[in-house]
């Protein structure tokens, strides 16, 4: 397994967020963590990226115990988070944002080539290359955030609510992009979503999180059929 999370517990102050979460991810696999708002999905991704230190449990990444390592160390190892709300560097140009994504790399020529690759993969970024990140629309910022994440040549790309605030048309586009990531960039994807429609259409396996615990998990077809899931979750959310 590329990534094995065992029995992770996290919290902020007196509040426990995740309670004994375990999860696995294989090379080039797309796995989703679904669940209602506040279930602890984002905290799980932030823990994997090193922004939150777990209280207990372990994270084994490519055979190495990386539990509780700092975010810059995790990024260097190839675990890259595209954070919720995109968190584009608004005062910096689109190209600067892309190059920042490649901070851990030293292969200058390959970085130049990857900037070009991103600009062909996300054509809007080529158009906006010299524009400030803050001038981009929400959808464009999401494209930039994903491209910036891919610039690190990650082994695992953690996507936190990439569909948040996007029109159905843009969600469709994001869906295509996620499906392409494994093939074009050789990365595994761990996708956290409230938009179950998007998550179920791209992932091969899924985990359903509820109150900080994994309620159930399995192949995506099973999850799709589950009446529990419908009741918990699909009911109120537009796919």
């Amino acid at each position, binding site marked *: 397994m590329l990534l094995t999370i065992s029995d992770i517990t996290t919290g902020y102050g007196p509040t426990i967020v995740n309670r004994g979460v375990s999860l696995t991810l294989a090379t080039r696999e797309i796995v989703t963590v679904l669940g209602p708002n506040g279930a602890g999905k984002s905290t799980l991704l932030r823990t994997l*990226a*090193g*922004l939150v230190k777990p209280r207990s449990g372990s994270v084994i990444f490519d055979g190495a115990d990386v539990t509780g390592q*700092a*975010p*810059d160390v995790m*990024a*260097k190892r190839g675990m*890259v*988070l595209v*954070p919720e709300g995109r*968190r584009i*560097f*608004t*005062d*910096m140009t689109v190209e*600067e944002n892309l*190059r*920042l*994504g490649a*901070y*851990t790399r030293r292969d200058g020529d390959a970085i130049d080539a990857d900037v070009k690759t991103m600009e062909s993969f996300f054509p809007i970024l080529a158009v906006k290359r010299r524009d400030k990140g803050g001038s981009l629309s929400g959808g464009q910022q999401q494209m930039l955030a994903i491209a*910036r994440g891919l610039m*690190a040549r990650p082994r695992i790309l953690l996507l936190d609510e990439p569909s948040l605030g996007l029109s159905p048309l843009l969600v469709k586009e994001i869906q295509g992009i996620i499906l392409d990531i494994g093939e074009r960039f050789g990365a595994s994807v761990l996708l956290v979503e409230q938009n179950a429609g998007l998550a179920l259409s791209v992932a091969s396996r899924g985990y359903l999180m509820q109150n900080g615990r994994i309620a159930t998990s399995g192949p995506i077809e099973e999850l799709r059929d589950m009446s529990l899931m419908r009741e918990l979750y699909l009911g109120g959310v537009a796919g």
Partner: protein
Amino acid sequence: MDILLQQILNGLSIASVITLIAVGVTLIFGLTGIINFAHGEFLMVGSIVTWLAVANGISFWLAILLAMIVVAVMGFALERGLFRFTLERPTNGFIVSLGLIIVLQHIVIFFWNANQKSIPRPLNTIWEMGGVRIASVRVMVIFITAAVVAMTFVAVTRSRYGRALRASVEDRDTAALMGIPVRRYITGVFVLGSALAGLGGGLLIALFPITPFTGGTMVMKGFAVALMGGLGNLTGAVVAGLILGIVEGLSAGYGFSEWTDAYSFGLMILVLLFRPNGLFGGTSGPKMA
């Protein structure tokens, strides 16, 4: 016209030293949210190192290099030993810096007394051009500052490290997600800011005699310049330093020279009244999670 040029050069030479402080203050604030009021004492230590070195027969040029190195090492030690522990609460860093003012002043007084200290002018040439008398030492101060500030500016705006620094200023957490070791950048900014203050101290003592209390007035003006330009904004600090130099030069030449400080602080108040974020817009310091 003749006297005008002379006065502006005089103003700019003092403003150079102030700009070197302002750049350090603004860079450190931008990344950490800490307003380091002891930065003036860093400058004063730079002056003392230069004074000691020159008194021991070392050339002035080597002495200012030594001042930069000594103050940079001091900045490194203080960041690792003190400021590092205040990063979560920048106000504590500010309070630490207030304490440092007293400590640094009194260490210097303890070893080298509180008397005025001066060095022989490193450059004695006075250029006479159509009735204008220009002291080469002042031109030297302006040129060294311009060169160093330009280098800092290019490094921050063009280099990969500068890009990472600006990203860390804008959003520390996300910068860390890019793999940027933000803590190391914080140390780096303290070291750079301290080296600039050390240089400023060396240049200052080439212009005027100093005392262990010189840092106080200099940091007030440095802080005023940083505020005028927009705290955290490097371009702002440089432009505001230039404006301050011209205003001080003109006020000394045509107004009442004893009112020079009133002009500079009056200017700061005016700027802040109409543009509370400074001329170029400041940052509000790091976002605290």
